[in-house]
């Protein structure tokens, strides 16, 4: 297993390299630059600012020196925030996005697996369609509608939670719901599908034929193999929860990395965009690895290859 993990790590390196290279050159091709402003900037001033960041050197040289710094873990200075480095910005904002993503994941798992299992208690009855329909609200309402809607109801009308912020425990509830429900819908469907397949298999039929209560059979025997498909989805989902939290961070004003990233893309803060891309790509690779390990652990028939 250690060898397997080591091999996967080695395989990840060229992937990261390709991602960085592609993004580096793509960004530079985009119109506009980090120092464009609405007021006129004298050419000499602009040239000095660009020289300060080495933007006046040939693009390929900039690329190699970026790679050199990257290898040493230095993501460079931010072009938009004059005295901050990308490392600092990531250090400040990543923990918040991670926490938000974690809460979102929790909601997704609880609601998703819950709905998926309940729906299999009596397939094709209202007990099936109701939780599935409910879970599907998450994928049918864009987060930028769901978020303000939840704020309207639970903070402006009911006054249960703050409308914005990320300070108290209560501030976590609405964002986590908004973020998690989208993925809950997918997990619910995958769990339902997985369970449905498992239930058709002989060992479950035997257990049911023996007269064991259906709920017990589902929880004890069908759940573990049944959630395998959902688990496979967790890799992309976790990545999405992290990098896709932009809308939620905007709606609730949470100082996470997603907001910083999107703003950086619009501000042409080249180094910040690249830094976050590298980080997210690395995290996606890591999650996929974790998911693969998890799948093997849950499914004795599968082996590390």
């Amino acid at each position, binding site marked *: 297993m250690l060898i397997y993990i080591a091999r996967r790590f080695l395989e990840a390196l060229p992937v990261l390299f390709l991602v960085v290279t592609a993004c580096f050159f793509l*960004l530079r091709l985009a119109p506009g630059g980090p120092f464009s402003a609405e007021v006129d900037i004298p050419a000499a001033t602009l040239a000095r600012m660009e020289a300060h960041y080495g933007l006046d050197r040939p693009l390929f040289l900039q690329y190699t020196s970026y790679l050199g710094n990257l290898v040493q873990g230095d993501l460079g200075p931010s072009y938009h925030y004059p005295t901050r480095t990308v490392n600092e910005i990531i250090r400040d904002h990543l923990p918040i996005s991670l926490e938000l993503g974690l809460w979102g994941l929790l909601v997704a798992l609880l609601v998703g697996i819950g709905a998926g299992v309940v729906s299999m208690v009596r397939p094709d009855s209202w007990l099936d369609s109701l939780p599935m329909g409910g879970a599907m609200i998450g994928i049918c309402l864009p987060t930028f509608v769901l978020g303000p809607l939840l704020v309207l109801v639970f903070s402006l009308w009911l006054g249960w939670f703050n409308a914005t912020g990320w300070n108290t425990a209560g501030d976590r509830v609405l964002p986590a719901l908004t973020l998690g429900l989208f993925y809950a819908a997918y997990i619910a469907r995958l769990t339902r599908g997985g369970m449905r*397949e498992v239930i058709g298999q002989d060992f479950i039929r035997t257990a049911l034929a023996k007269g064991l209560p259906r709920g017990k059979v589902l929880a004890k025997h069908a759940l573990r193999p049944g959630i395998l498909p959902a688990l496979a989805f967790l890799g992309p989902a976790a990545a999405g929860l992290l990098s896709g939290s932009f809308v939620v961070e905007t709606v609730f004003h949470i100082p996470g990395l997603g907001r910083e990233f*999107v703003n950086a893309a619009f501000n042409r803060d080249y180094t910040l965009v690249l830094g976050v891309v590298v980080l997210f790509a690395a995290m996606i690779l890591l999650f996929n690895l974790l998911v693969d390990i998890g799948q093997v652990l849950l499914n004795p028939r599968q082996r590390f290859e």
Partner: protein
Amino acid sequence: MSVTVPATALPSSAEHLSPGRLAWQRLRSNRMAMAGLAFLVFFSGLCLTGPWFSPYGFQEQPLIAEGATPPGAQHWLGTDHRGRDLATRLFHGGRISLLVGLLATAVSLTIGVAYGALSGFLGGKTDSAMMRFVDILYALPFTVFVILLMVFFGRSLVLLFLAIGAVEWLTMARIVRGQVLSLRQRAFVEAARILGQRPGKLLSGHILPNAAGPIIVYTTLTIPNVMLLEAFVSFLGLGVQPPMSSLGLLINDGATSMEGAPWLLIVPGLAFALTLFSLNFLGDGLRDAFDPRTGK
């Protein structure tokens, strides 16, 4: 028109129709899926013909100082802040959203099927190299990629969604490859090969038609994804060019005035949610129908 069945995926001769017919029968007994199909037919019908019957133009503004008016006899679904008839804009927007969904999905379908089929059919080293490439693309943070695409293609919606479709093909390629790999070994394919069919003919005539089920299912599930993406792009303010509308744009406009003029959110929101519900239920239904193992 709800499900695009591309020519390559259509059963090409009579003997392959029977699994399709079987699936159709199974699908017909699935109430949610049929309700979804019915809604899709109904809504696309409205989007296609509605603007025809409407007395208003989708960009026609009465240029009045007053803001939005609630649903009433004159405007059945009310008007927006510019005084434009919401029903007309909804049908126009629905048309664009469905079109965008179909366009991007068609792109992803074409690339995904071609790539997956080729990879599975060739097998061996080529196959594993091609699949490794897919793995690499999977590692790209998707939102990041969409934003980069927007920076480039922000000016042209069609280009943007072509690009999105070009990214969305990964899962399709995996599914198709898996199907092709398993079908390759089957007796009827072997038989056709022994009879001297050329590889291209073999692929398009025998293998792909039998992989049609999963392809159709996944296609149905890609359309809502792309439509959500369109909504996200609208949220960032980079969607279709006003005064044109799309469901995402209408919803985004509505979300900003959900208290003052709730119908501006409810109407397009409901249409959007129902369309996505329908596509998802139809996709689920199709999956159940095509996969005999999950039969009841």
